């Protein structure tokens, strides 16, 4: 499967590069995405494509993975882009350490590299001889979860009983989102009954929540690290007949959750403007190409989505 993807990639690269040679030599941007199976990244990729089509001044080559942890394919993609001498690589790393050496190679080859979505590991950056304040374009996951958490806490009041449903243990955004939730727990002196993972998955979140409801029938709020899990959690609460008593917040703002928010079954979620995120990263990249010196964290907006803010 990987081989196949690789072949497809090489072929498409060849086509693109020859056609672009024949044309007026537009700058080429390589976009390395995480799993396109994830709705969030899918919309992000579509946003980038749309931006490329509307802008028309550059050539976009997007590459996606099979799963969120498919590091090899990402490394291969970056190295292929280096060989193809693209002008810019825009990268959402599947692993914040594993991709750093490839980034270093690309930078050394004179390619503008924009790291977005998930930040590269600080120590790995230093170890590989890249500047410590290496550019990162992305949302503040911690801030996002803190905002939505606050929204929940305001609703429930201080010392409310809450549960956190975490993402994949080890994933950076999962850690950051939990961190944001934990800030709220401290600030509002919430009674954290349990914090456990459901591996980003709907069915598992449903099972875990159902079981936790048995253990903690008096829970008042649930903070989920993504919307897929929120779907399962809401369903579990609904099945237990407590949909009016327990408030749920999520993260990502997927369509299915918007519907739940409208129905009042879910309190809020966080929009990190996925469709624009890759496009934003590309825009920052062009600033570099024009000679501007950009470094550090270029934050992209995060916003709480609730019944009031939904049209």
């Amino acid at each position, binding site marked *: *499967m990987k081989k196949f993807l690789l072949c497809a990639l090489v072929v498409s690269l060849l086509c693109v590069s020859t056609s672009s040679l024949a044309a007026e030599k537009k700058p080429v941007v390589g976009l390395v995405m995480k799993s*396109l*199976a*994830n*709705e969030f990244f*899918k919309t992000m990729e579509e946003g980038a494509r749309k931006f490329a089509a509307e802008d028309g001044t550059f050539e976009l080559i997007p590459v996606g993975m099979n799963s969120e942890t498919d590091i090899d394919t990402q490394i291969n993609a970056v190295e292929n882009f280096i060989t193809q001498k693209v002008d810019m690589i825009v990268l959402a790393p599947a692993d914040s350490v594993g991709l750093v050496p490839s980034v270093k190679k690309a930078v050394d080859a004179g390619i503008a590299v924009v790291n977005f979505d998930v930040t590269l590991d600080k120590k790995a950056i230093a170890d590989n001889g890249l500047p410590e304040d290496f550019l990162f374009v992305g949302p503040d996951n911690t801030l996002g979860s803190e905002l939505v958490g606050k929204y929940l806490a305001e609703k429930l009041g201080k010392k409310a009983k809450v549960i956190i449903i975490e993402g994949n*243990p080890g994933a950076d955004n999962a850690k950051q989102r939990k961190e944001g939730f934990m800030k709220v727990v401290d600030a509002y002196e919430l009674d954290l009954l*349990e914090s*456990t*993972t459901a591996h980003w*998955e*709907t*069915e598992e979140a*449903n*099972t*875990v929540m*159902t*079981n*936790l409801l*048995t*253990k903690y029938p008096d829970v008042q709020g649930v903070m989920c690290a993504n919307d*897929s899990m929120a*779907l*399962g959690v809401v*369903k579990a609460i*609904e*099945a237990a007949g407590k949909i009016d008593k327990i408030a749920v917040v999520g993260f990502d703002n*997927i*369509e*299915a959750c918007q*519907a739940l928010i409208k129905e009042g079954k879910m309190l809020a979620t966080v929009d990190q403007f996925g469709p624009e995120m890759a496009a934003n990263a590309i825009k920052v990249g062009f600033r570099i190409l024009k000679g501007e010196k950009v470094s550090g964290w270029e934050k992209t907006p995060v916003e709480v989505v609730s019944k009031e803010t939904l049209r």
Partner: protein
Amino acid sequence: MQGKNIQSRKWLHLLLNEAGIGLIFVVLCGLFAAFVPNFASLNNISNIFTQISINTVISTGMTFVILLGGIDLSVGSVLSLCTILAGMTITNKALPFPFALVGAVGASILCGMICGFFNGFVAEKWKVHSFVVTLGMLNIARGAALQISGSRTIFSFPAAFNAFGTMAVGGVPVIFVMAVTGVSLGHFVLKKTVFGRMIYAIGNNEEAVRLCGHNTRKYKISAFVLCGACVGVAAVMYMLRLNIASPILGAGFELSAIAAVVIGGTSMSGGKGSLVGTLIGAAIIGVLNNGLLLIGMKDFARQMVTGLIIVAAVVLDTYRVRLSRLFS
């Protein structure tokens, strides 16, 4: 003669052979009931029923395939594809509800059967091990699900459909009733019909069955188709339970199903096993998930303990087999 002795031996044999794993299950439940508050509450038991239903139905199909010495790794992805097709049908505004419902269920089961047929046909026609074919199907079905759905979650099913999913018959969740019906039907087919007899016989000695003048290929492909049909049913149950259809769901379902089958005492090399065992196997996994969480065990510890108990159950099972041989 010593009729009584033989009779009691026979019972002991039956107990060890059929109910050995059930004993482990009962002990496990007893322990949880004793130490975990609310574990034995009606509500919690009903929750466990709901939670094991989908795996039970998938495992039922998987049991047929494993009894033939095969394996189906594609069940999770195929389930996802089935939900997408069924979800698109049932949310199709052009169809009146009853038609949409029948169409969705039909599409789901048909899709499962077609994928199963592909698995079985390729495995049999070109003598490729089902491990490889179904590994391919795992990717094919996942890709198809993502492609067809545009990698988007489908939701907003008709209210009547969603309401049916949360219904309970005398306290028993409706999807568990479906699961038990499925297992019972499967058990009947395996133990009482010619088809079931052939499954066991082929699993034990395919060549002997072929030389008896049976078309073993037909039976083997049928087992995969049946497994696919079970996945199609499980997909509808998934939609009833969670009211969504998604191209990313079902990852890892194949492993839970295989675990349930193996814990249930079905031999991976085929020919031996039963659906009673599979049902208990699925129940053991469900009870562990539930009980360990209620105990308050943390994520990683829970994962390790579940793994250890799966291994222990299977190891204990080998002793059970030895014991039951002594009394056969």
